[in-house]
Each structure stands twice: as C-alpha cells, then as structure tokens.
C-alpha cells in the first residue's frame, strides 16, 4: 500500500439554526486517512452527515472546524483534482454526451484533438459508443450516470468522489453500474470515496467500509473488506460476503433505529 493521499483532520460541520432554532450538528469532529488507490465506501443511514463529509472533501461545503488535506495541501474550494459524481443527474442538458465528457478538459484548455482522443477512450470505457451526439435527456438514468462518471474521470482527478450515484436507479441497473465502476477501478486504480446507504453496495465495491452513525454524524466503525479482486456479482452470495453483510446490517440497524427514534 502506498502513502496517504487524503487526510481528513477533525473535520466537523455545524449548520446554523433556521429561524432562531438551535444549530444543527451535522458532523462531529471526524478524522480519516485515505490511502492511494483505495476504494472506500462511507455507509450510513440518511442524515448521518456522510454527504456533508463528501461535500467538504469536494470543497462544495466548508468545515466548521478542522481541515482536509489532499496530497498535503489544504482544500479551500472545489477543483479539478477531485472529480465528483452526484446523486442527481447533473449532466449539462445543453451539451451532447461527448461535449459533457469533454467539459473539464475544455476548462483546462486542452487542445481539441487531444480532447477528442480522451473523450473517445472514456466513452468506450463506460460503454456509451454510438451515443456521443445524443443529449442527456435522450438517455436513461443509468446511461446518464455512466456519462457523469466518464466526465469526472476524463479530468484525471487525484480522487473520485461519488455521492450515492446509483441511488436513483432501479436495482438491476444499479448492480450493473457497480460492476462497471469496479471494473474501471480494478483497471485504473483510482482513489475512490463512495457514499451510500446500501449495505451490499458498500461491501461489494469497497476495500474498506466506513460506517457512520446518525445525528450527530461520526465514524462508528472502519471495516476492511478483504474479498478478492476481480469481483463478480456472484460474490454477493458467498458466505464471506454474507458474514460481512450481517455484521454491517447489525451496525447500521442500531444507527437507523436511533435516527428514527426507535429503541
């Protein structure tokens, strides 16, 4: 294992109270070290601050306290060194699929010929050949998220951040997307931070699952996943996988019950 690429240092986030209400503590001081080429999933019930943590890493939100270091440099705002895929469909509707994937390259000022080459390679990798000139609206949700992944990867970021990217997709599509993403990771070994509330998804993708607790959010467990690569969807039915799933289900269940006020 190589060195630490991302270091989250006692990061907390308090949202100011709305209309004189009490401030909301979304994230307790949280620390996390991410090693180069690791695939980390952050698992937790809704409202556990996992998205807040990811947005802080992306630079889209500021921590109330603490700091985040990427390659030793403190993060002050969003930037092309951290690619992000959102849960909502965020392709630019006025650009074609190819233009969407090329967006970051264009912002960087990369010449057209080179841009086209990179776009072609990523269109291929996410299986969207033949759809280059379609508009996002003409594509299914799964295809749109594949484009969003390609768009983020085309920028060659140091780390890829995904905020429940498959949350709005149906179960079958979600399974296919997980395999696609994992396949890309197995080949390219990007560092990935993936937020989800789906236990199976968290285990299947990760080399390390971070379990977060609800309100206020904090890291509750850090569980390595030593399942072999390349992973195939059939792995989800192996005893090792089931054991991990049972363990995480228990962890999450307690949290979900607390979050919902059930005891």
């Amino acid at each position: 294992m190589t060195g630490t690429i991302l270091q989250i240092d006692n990061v907390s986030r308090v949202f100011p109270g709305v209309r004189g209400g009490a401030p909301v503590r979304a994230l307790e001081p949280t620390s996390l070290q991410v090693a180069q080429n690791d695939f980390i999933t952050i698992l937790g019930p809704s409202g556990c601050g996992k998205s807040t943590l990811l947005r802080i890493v992306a630079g889209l939100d500021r921590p109330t306290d603490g700091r985040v270091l990427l390659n030793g440099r403190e993060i002050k705002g969003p930037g092309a060194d951290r690619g992000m895929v959102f849960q909502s469909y965020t392709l630019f509707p006025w650009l074609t699929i190819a233009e969407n994937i090329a967006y970051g390259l264009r912002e960087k000022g990369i010449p057209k010929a080179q841009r086209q080459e990179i776009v072609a390679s990523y269109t291929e990798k996410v299986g969207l050949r033949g759809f280059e000139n379609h508009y996002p609206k003409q594509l299914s949700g799964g295809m749109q998220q594949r484009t969003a992944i390609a768009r983020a990867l085309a920028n060659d970021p140091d780390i890829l951040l995904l905020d429940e990217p498959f949350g709005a997709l149906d179960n079958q599509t979600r399974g296919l997307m997980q395999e696609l993403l994992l396949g890309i990771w197995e080949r390219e070994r990007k560092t990935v931070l993936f937020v989800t509330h789906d236990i199976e998804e968290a285990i299947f993708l990760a080399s390390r699952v971070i379990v977060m607790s609800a309100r206020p959010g904090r890291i509750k467990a850090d569980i390595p996943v030593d399942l072999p690569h390349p992973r195939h969807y059939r792995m989800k039915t192996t005893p090792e996988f089931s054991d991990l799933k049972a363990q995480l289900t228990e962890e999450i269940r307690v949290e979900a019950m607390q979050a919902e006020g059930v005891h």
Partner: protein
Amino acid sequence: MPRPLEPVSQGTRVTLGISFFVLFVAAWAFATLGGFVSRTFLADPITMLQDGWLLLTRFGFLGDIGITVWRVVGGFVIAAAIAVPLGILMGAYKSFEAFLEPFVSFARYLPASAFIPLLILWAGIGEMQKLLVIFIGSVFQIILMVAVSVGNTRRDLVEAAYTLGSSDQGVVKRVLIPANAPEIAEILRLVLGWAWTYVIVAELIGSSSGIGHMIIDSQALLATGQMIFGIIVIGIIGLISDFLFKAVNRSLFPWRLA
C-alpha cells in the same frame, strides 16, 4: 368528453384554433350585418376589408406598418442589448443584484405611457421619442426576468462545473448563460409582445406616421373599419413575430426538445 391534460393531435389542434377565428368573425358579422349594432360604432367585416384595401393601396398604409415595425424592433433591440447582460450579472452576482434590484423593481412599475409627455418635452416627437418609450417599457422588465431566471439556475449544475475545474467566470459563461439561454429567448418573446402596446400608445400621442397614428386619424373621421383594420394588422404582425421567435428558438436550442 376529453379528460384533463389529455393531449390532442396536431390536426385537431389546428382545426380547433382556426374554428375560433371563424366563430369570432361570424359573431361579428352577425351583429353588424344583421343590424344589431350601429355602423357608427362598429364596422362590419366586409367594410373593414374594403377600408383596409383602400388604406393599403391609396393611403400608403404599408409605409405606416413599416415605420411602426422599425420602431418596435429598434427600441426593443436597444433594450435587450442593455438589459440581458445586466440581468445575467444581477442573477449571477448577488451583491450586484442587491445594488440594482430595488431600483429596477421600482422602475418596472413606472408606466411607459406616462413618460410620453415628458419624453416629448425631452426628445420632441421624432423617432428618438418613440424608441425611448419602447426602451423604457421593455428594459426593466427584461432585466428583472432575466435576473430571476439566471438566479434560479440549478445549483447542482453549478457545483458540478466547479468540481470539473470551472473558474467563476467559466461558470457564468459556460453554465449560467447556456442553461438560461432558452428561458431568456422566451422572456424576449414575451416582452416584445408588450413592446407592441407601447409603440401604439406612443404613436397615438404626437406622431405623424405609424399604425397608431393612422388609428387616431381614423377616429376623427369615425372610420371604424379603418381602425379595426389597423388593430387587426397589429395582431397579425404580433402573431408572425411570435411564430418567428418560436421557430428560431427551436432551431437554436434543439436540446430542449431532445
């Protein structure tokens, strides 16, 4: 019975649209030709067409139409050229919005027609005065509506652009503007419609040419046929410009229909 929100076919749509025009003219013809309304107050459709033909062939009404169209387009283009960039800046930069929005909101309610006496004082009764009426009537409306549209740009698209490495300027140029371009075009189409009412008012007062001038001239002669013809011409030009605007928008923004 049709059900709520159930779509109709293109053919039915056209037929229904035309049939109301037919119904309207029929009711008008019935009221006037049937002798239910005095000719002094309302000309019948046939007289209207005859008067219209006379206007076009003998009194150079085409020239009036031309000058009115020129005024609307001139005043409107100047207003749009100033208002659209201002609106985009206001929508994008909140401090700029806080600076201008209260004044623009106030100015928007100043009726353009109320400025006409003042504008005659300032600019005489020449073309400048007509252009200014249309300019004042349109510019504040466009600024505000464009600012609202730009201000409502989807935040997640802006965030996505930032994570892809866009600068602040890049976000304005390559997200805020293209994302709102169809909406801005739609705003311009709407305000152009309003500009038409301003130009006629401007021509009713202190003018020696244009459709509005012809209408006020005809009033002196109680020529209701000519007046109605003038009004209908305005409606037809409005319909044509609307159609053109929609066609241009469709070809400019194919992604909207995709």
